[in-house]
Each structure stands twice: as structure tokens, then as C-alpha cells.
């Protein structure tokens, strides 16, 4: 240590000032000794704390003034100092150098806590004694100790919480815990009461620091009895200090067991009351706020742990009950964790499969799955667990005989109050027989379907053949009709010629014969003409265009005097819906319909015909009407290509027809029985039918014998 030398003039004054400060003002104890360790100075601070005046100690050996130094082996620090060493005495290792009374009474220290330095006193480079500086660090040490206690309590509390939450038997832990903090807090007694919710009595679960007799006396408390009962009733801690002076009769018992202060905490969690935890001390009359808060925290932790243990117990009981039940059902029952690991599978599974006990747990049950089902079932289970939706699956499990049996499995999640999945609960039901039946049924169905497909194909083939035949027939009849007309015309022509030239020269009988020949030839010609026009309708190439039906009908009427007044009245209810049609075929159809409508009328009655139109739905068909094509087959209505039709109605006041006739009237060469007296070839409606069919339309009739007919044709509507 180097001290900068001061100017000599000031040196003496400064020394005096320093000595003055050291002796009277310094906030430390300072004393010096000579090389024999006899005290040579003793400052005011030391006088005050040692109650020894300087003149009483100066000249005295240090060991006599402070006798404890020797027994505490502190004298050698002074010897070391005499050898030139500077010694440090820390309060942490020595507490104090000089045994003075504590400066802070509440600190609880028996002596003033000190830290000290003992150094050699140098004079001209020689050691001439020792100098010791003593500092009072009681307050600092006390604060440190408080801090350390707080820290230790915090640690104890957090450790306690951890232990309590893990403990199966929190009551045993309360006992253990008590032993750990009892000494630190100077708590001598604890009582742990359990509340019987039915009787509202408190029953002593465990306690410490009481004799057997005292325990027996405190074993049951009626509702509201004693401090513990009061705490329970008010749901508030009951603090009872100064028991000795308390007049409250509740204090009597505790006084008899020698307690000075008592506190009871109700064990409450939310609205659940579990019991009471109480503490007592024999050494102090009251609790500090710190202690109360510490004990209350302990009580709160204990309440949490007790509640948890109770809930766990309830859960365990219900789980055991569930397992017992699960073993009685014939199905496989399982439970799984929220993450999908099986944590329980009943005995049925193991008796059915070859898996060893617990082998199905976690994902072990997958081992028994048929290899074709494994990947699928694993995916299904995984996605159910992930999404939280029910699991439904069918799969095969290998039984003890190595045979695969079909099972239907179903699992659903059990959710907690917050909606999170707690567990999966599921079952597997054997459906092997059902599945086999189902498989057989499916096979039969497949066969049937195949058969039906074959049948349809056959029908298709036959129909095509038939169509070809019809086409051949149609072309044949065209040829026949065409070739027939020439000889018929010849017959007709020559017949008329003979009648004109030789009609007067031949007998009436012969003339009548010729007349018949000519008339028959005329009929024959009309027939062949109609047949030709039918085959033309059936075979010619047509193009369908949008048309307005009204002018076409107008033309038909204008061309035919039989459709005009006074011979007939044909009324068109305008406007008529436009249609997609072939103009010539459409004209032919209307001409034929109007011919019929005005022809088959009772004699003497003026034919009246009404033509109107409406739009009908393709699915709509008038009851009682059969849609047929020429071969007598039911018409195939194609709903897909044409959802709606324009229906043209031709209503007459003619003779009408019965049901049977209505069925046949559209066939070629078919004539109504009632129409025998009317001229005609029986081809008109057949032409109509063929024409409508080729224009992708439909047709039909509604009629009552003697009450007129209502013919209709459906054609696709113009856009």
C-alpha cells in the first residue's frame, strides 16, 4: 500500500484530524495492539458496543478483554497480522469477531454480525503491532437471511406443488411436507380434516404434534365446531393468536395441548370444499404475515392435490367398472388415447386372436389385420384421430385358427368440457356371416347384371335385324306399287275407252261389268299412290327446319274444297306455336288429319274441325293414350334431346272410335270398323305416324265412339 507523502507542515495537523475521526466519529470499531497483542487504542464505537471504556481496556491483553477469541481460534489472525499478513474475517464464516449484543433485536441473531480486517501496524517498515477494523453488518446479514428464507420458501413451495401433484396419497405428503418446513417456521402441530359432505362433520385424517389422547379428542368436529369448523363454515382462514389470553371457548382445547397460536385454512377449490388444514405453534404467540401467506399457499396446494387425487380415484373406479363391464359383452371393446394409441382392449380380442396379453395395445392390433386391409384401415384410423370424426370401418382379423374373419369397427371420441378429445371408445363386431352373405348377394347381382346386359344386346341385335327387314319390305312395296301402277292405269284407261266407244252397243250387264272394272282400277291406283307416298315418307332424306304451322295449314285448306265452307268448317286457334319440322311431311300430316276429320262424319252433319296448339312437358303423356310406332312397339320417348314439345290438336265432331280401334288406327292398312262405309285406303294415318316419327315427334288420339276424335301430334318446339 503506497501512501502519497503529504507536505510536512500539514502532516501533524492531518494526523491529529485522522486520529480524532478514528476515535470519535468512525462508524466502525477500530482498535490497535502492540506486538504482545496488548490493546493500545479502543475507539468510541467500541466503547459504546462493548460497554467498556477505553481506559478499562488499554494495556490489557486482547485475550483477556475478548476471552472468546482463544476458544474460537481467532487469535492466530492477529499472529498472522504480526507476520505482515492482512487478514479478512467474513461474517458468513465467523459471524462476528467481538461478541457484542445484536443491534437489530428482531433479527434473531445472538450477536452483532461483524466483518473484520486485521492488519499489521507498520512503523518505519517494521511491524509494531496490529490494527483491527470491525464493521457492523447485522442489518445486511438479516436482510440476506430474509431473502434466503424467502427463496427457500419459494423453492419449497414449488417443489411441494410438484410432489403434491404427483402424489397418489396427498395426505401422506402433507405429513412429509410438514416435517420439512416445521422446523424452519417453528410450527409444532398440524391437523388435516376431511369434510364429510353428507353430515358436514370434519374427520381428522392426519396430524402431528398431538398425543394419542389429544388426537382422539380432536378426531371429529361437528359443523362449525372449533376454529376448524368456523373456518370451514365461513370458507375463510381462522387465525387465532395469543391463545393464552383468549376468552373464546374454542381456544380451550388448544390451550390444553400447549399451543400459543393457531390458524385453520379451509381447503377450498372453486365451489368444492374438501376439508381443513390447520397449524399451531407452541413457541410464539402470533404469526407473521409472511408465515400466514406461506401456510395459506401450502393449504391451497394441498387442496389442489387432494381434489386431483379424489378425481383420479373417481376416474379409476369408473374405469375399473367400465373394464369389468367390457369383459361381459360379446363384442371386442377398446379404448384409445386422444392420439389414437389403444390403451385398453378387452379379453374377447385376445381369445379370438393369437396376440399375447397387451399385444393389441398402442398399435399392436394392426398385426392381426389382413394384409389387404392394413393400409386402408391404418389410414382410416389415422384420419379419424386427426379429424376427431367417428371411425367406421370393415376389415378382416386373423383368428386363432389363422382364418380371417370380417369385423365391423366403430369408434367415437369422448370429449372434455373444453371440447378436446379425452379418449376414444370403440367396438368391433363380428360380421363374418353377414359379410359372406353380402358377398354372395353381390356376386349374384353381378351375374344377373351380366345376364341382363346380354339380353339387351340380343334384343338390340334382333331389332336391328327387324329394322333391316322392314326397310327391305318398304323398298319392296315401293317397287311393287310403282310397277303395279302401269297395268292399273292401262286397265283404267282401256276400260274407260271401251265404255266411251262401245257403251251403247253392249248389254247393260256388260256395261255394268266394265264400270266395275274402271272403278276397281281407280281404287287400285289410289291405293298404290298412297303406298308410294308412305314409302317415300319412310325413306326420303329430310331436313328439319323451324316452321310456323298456321300458313301451312292455311295452304292445305285452300287446296282442298272439302275442307272449305259450306262443306266443312275448319277453325285455327291462333297463334300456333312454331315447331321444328320438315315442311312437306308436316303439310302431308295436316292434310291427312284434316281429310280424316272431315271425312268420318255422320251423313247430313257439317264437319267442324278446331286446330290449336300447346306446349307440353316431354314426360307428360295423356292417360289412356298409347304412343306407338308402326311396328306396334311402344314409342321410345327421348327426354334427353327434347324436354318439351309443341302439341297440335285436331279436334273433330266425327263418328269417333272405340279403344280397340284407337290402338290399331295408326297401323298400315288398318281401318276403323265404323269407317267401312267411307272411302279410303287405310294408309293415311300410317303415313302420318311415319312422318311424325321421322320428325322426332309423337302422336296419339283421344276419342269416344260417337262423340268425335281429338288427334294430336307432338313436335319439337322452334327456338
Amino acid at each position, binding site marked *: 500500500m503506497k501512501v502519497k507523502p503529504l507536505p510536512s507542515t500539514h502532516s501533524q495537523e492531518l494526523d491529529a484530524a485522522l486520529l480524532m475521526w478514528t476515535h470519535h466519529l468512525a462508524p466502525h470499531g477500530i482498535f490497535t495492539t502492540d506486538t504482545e497483542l496488548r490493546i493500545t487504542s479502543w475507539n468510541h464505537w467500541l466503547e459504546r458496543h462493548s460497554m467498556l471504556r477505553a481506559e478499562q481496556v488499554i494495556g490489557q491483553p486482547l485475550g483477556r478483554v475478548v476471552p472468546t477469541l482463544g476458544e474460537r481460534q481467532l487469535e492466530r489472525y492477529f499472529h498472522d497480522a504480526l507476520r505482515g499478513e492482512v487478514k479478512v474475517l467474513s461474517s458468513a*464464516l465467523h459471524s462476528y469477531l467481538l461478541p457484542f449484543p445484536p443491534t437489530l433485536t428482531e433479527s434473531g441473531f445472538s450477536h452483532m454480525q461483524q466483518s473484520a480486517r486485521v*492488519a499489521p501496524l507498520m512503523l518505519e517498515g517494521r511491524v509494531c503491532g496490529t490494527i483491527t477494523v470491525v464493521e457492523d453488518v447485522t442489518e445486511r446479514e438479516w436482510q440476506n437471511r430474509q431473502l434466503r428464507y424467502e427463496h427457500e420458501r419459494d423453492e419449497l413451495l414449488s417443489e411441494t406443488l410438484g410432489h403434491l401433484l404427483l402424489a397418489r396419497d396427498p395426505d401422506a405428503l402433507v405429513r412429509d411436507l410438514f416435517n420439512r418446513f416445521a422446523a424452519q417456521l417453528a410450527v409444532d402441530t398440524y391437523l388435516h380434516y376431511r369434510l364429510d359432505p353428507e353430515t358436514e362433520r370434519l374427520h381428522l385424517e392426519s396430524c402431528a404434534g398431538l398425543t394419542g389422547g389429544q388426537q382422539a379428542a380432536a378426531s371429529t368436529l361437528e359443523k362449525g365446531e372449533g376454529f376448524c369448523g368456523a373456518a370451514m363454515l365461513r370458507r375463510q382462514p381462522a387465525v387465532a393468536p395469543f391463545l393464552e389470553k383468549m376468552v373464546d371457548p374454542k381456544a380451550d382445547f388448544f390451550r390444553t395441548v400447549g399451543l400459543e397460536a393457531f390458524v385453520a385454512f379451509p381447503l377450498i377449490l372453486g365451489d368444492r370444499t374438501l376439508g381443513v388444514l390447520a397449524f399451531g405453534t407452541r413457541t410464539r404467540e402470533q404469526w407473521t404475515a409472511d408465515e400466514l401467506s406461506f401456510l395459506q399457499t401450502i393449504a391451497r396446494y394441498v387442496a389442489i392435490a387432494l381434489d386431483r387425487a379424489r378425481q383420479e380415484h373417481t376416474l379409476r373406479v369408473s374405469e375399473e367398472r367400465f373394464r369389468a363391464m367390457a369383459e361381459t359383452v360379446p363384442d371386442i371393446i377398446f379404448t384409445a388415447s386422444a392420439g389414437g394409441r389403444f390403451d385398453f382392449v378387452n379379453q374377447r380380442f385376445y381369445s379370438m386372436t393369437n396376440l399375447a396379453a397387451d399385444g393389441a395395445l398402442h398399435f399392436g392390433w394392426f398385426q392381426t389385420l389382413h394384409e389387404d386391409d392394413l393400409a386402408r384401415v391404418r389410414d382410416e384410423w389415422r384420419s379419424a384421430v386427426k379429424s376427431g370424426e367417428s371411425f367406421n370401418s370393415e376389415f378382416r382379423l386373423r383368428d386363432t385358427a389363422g382364418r380371417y374373419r370380417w369385423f365391423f369397427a366403430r369408434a367415437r371420441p369422448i370429449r372434455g368440457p373444453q371440447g378436446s378429445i379425452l379418449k376414444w371408445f370403440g367396438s368391433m363386431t363380428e360380421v363374418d356371416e353377414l359379410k359372406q352373405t353380402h358377398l354372395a348377394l353381390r356376386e349374384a347381382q353381378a351375374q344377373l347384371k351380366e345376364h341382363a346386359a346380354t339380353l339387351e344386346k340380343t334384343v338390340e341385335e334382333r331389332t336391328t335385324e327387324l329394322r333391316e327387314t322392314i326397310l327391305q319390305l318398304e323398298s319392296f312395296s315401293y317397287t311393287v306399287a310403282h310397277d303395279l301402277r302401269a297395268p292399273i292405269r292401262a286397265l283404267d284407261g282401256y276400260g274407260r275407252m271401251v265404255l266411251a266407244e262401245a257403251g251403247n252397243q253392249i248389254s247393260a250387264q256388260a256395261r255394268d261389268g266394265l264400270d266395275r272394272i274402271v272403278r276397281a282400277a281407280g281404287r287400285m291406283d289410289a291405293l298404290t299412290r298412297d303406298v308410294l307416298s308412305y314409302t317415300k315418307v319412310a325413306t326420303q332424306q329430310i331436313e328439319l327446319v323451324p316452321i310456323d304451322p298456321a300458313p301451312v295449314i292455311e295452304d292445305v285448306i285452300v287446296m282442298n274444297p272439302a275442307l272449305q265452307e259450306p262443306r266443312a268448317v275448319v277453325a285455327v286457334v291462333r297463334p300456333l306455336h312454331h315447331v321444328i319440322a320438315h315442311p312437306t311431311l308436316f303439310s302431308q300430316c295436316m292434310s291427312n288429319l284434316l281429310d280424316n276429320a272431315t271425312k268420318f262424319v255422320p251423313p247430313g252433319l257439317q264437319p267442324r274441325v278446331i286446330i290449336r296448339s300447346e306446349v307440353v312437358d316431354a314426360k307428360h303423356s295423356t292417360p289412356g293414350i298409347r304412343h306407338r310406332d308402326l311396328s306396334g312397339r311402344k314409342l321410345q320417348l327421348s327426354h334427353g334431346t327434347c324436354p318439351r314439345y309443341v302439341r297440335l290438336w285436331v279436334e273433330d265432331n266425327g263418328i269417333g272410335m272405340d279403344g280397340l280401334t284407337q290402338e290399331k288406327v295408326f297401323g298400315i292398312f288398318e281401318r276403323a270398323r265404323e269407317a267401312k262405309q267411307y272411302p279410303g285406303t287405310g294408309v293415311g294415318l300410317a303415313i302420318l305416324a311415319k312422318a311424325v316419327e321421322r320428325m322426332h315427334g309423337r302422336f296419339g288420339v283421344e276419342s269416344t265412339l260417337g262423340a268425335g276424335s281429338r288427334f294430336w301430334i307432338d313436335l319439337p318446339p322452334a327456338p
Partner: protein
Amino acid sequence: MELTSRHREALTELINIGYGRAASALSELTGRRIILDVPKVDVFPVEHVGKALSKVLRGDVASVHQVFSGPLAGNALLLLDQEAAMLLNALLLDQPVGSRLDAAGREALIEVGNIVLNACLGVFGNLLQVQVTFAVPSLHLESVTGVLGSISVQEEELQYALMVHTRFRLKDSNVSGYLVIVLGITSFSRLLHELDHWETRQLSR
């Protein structure tokens, strides 16, 4: 200046004698058996000691620093990293390991450092038959560079550092620290010279 293996061995032995004294004082003080080991002794020019210390001590270090003067003059330091300081403190005071060094803890550490440093320098003084005078020890919590800043006194003379790896063994635990004694070349040469003599004396005995 290179340390020969003979010098190194002699130095180690000498320090061991000092440490034996310190250990018995510490054991007596704490009431527990404490052993001080010297796994390694090195000598560096003072400029290199920073680098050597940075390799073995991380972060802030607690250093007990004591200046000594007289015929043998220099700086003596006991260095512990924060963790070791805390552990040593807890072991000596029989307390749980804290998170910071409080005033009492710092004082205790000063006392321990003081005992170790004095013991070590005491045997040097005895060997050289000189009186070593000490200043009051102090404790600092700072980086290694900070510690070295406080010892690099502006001396004309070349400075050497004796670096002693020190191990405190107590209660089945080990705490490692470093004792650094910085001496001028003259003091150091004298020390080595006396070491040779001492060895000879030992052999002739």
C-alpha cells in the same frame, strides 16, 4: 524466460506447501475437510496471461486481488468464473447454490482468497527469507480483460506471471480456479535462484 521442468516441479512443490497451509486453515474455518490441488503451473510474460486465462475462464470472473510489497513485490489474484465462485461459496457456507453473489458471499470469497494468497506468498517469503507486506484484499466481478487491466501497473521492468491451476476439493465436489502471481523479472529470477538453493538444501538434508 522458459521454466525448466526442474523449476516447474520445485515451484509446484512449494505452492503445494502453501496450499497445504491454506487448506488446513479453510478446513478449520468451515469445519469440513477441504483439499487444495495444484494440477498445473505455468509461467508467461504478463502480456500472454490474458490469452491463457481467456482459454480457461468464460464470461465474468470473480477475482480476489491483493497487492504485496517489500523485497518481493507484485500482484496476486485468485480467479474463479462466476459459476465456480457461486459453487465454492455455497459449499463453504453450506447453503444452496444462489444465483448472485451477495455482500456476505463476496466477503467470504475475499477471506478464502486471502487465505490462499497469503499462504502461497508466505512460503515464497519464507523461502526468500524476506518480509512480504500485503495490502487489503479486494474482490472484483468483471471480464478477464478488466482483471488484467487492474494489474498491469506501469512498471519499467519486465513482468512475469505465474499461473497456478488450483482445485478446491470438498464435499465430493471440485471447484477449479486460477492463482496468478505477477512478479517483476528481478523478483522472479530471485525466486528461481532461491528455488535452486532450496532444492540443494532439501537434497543435502
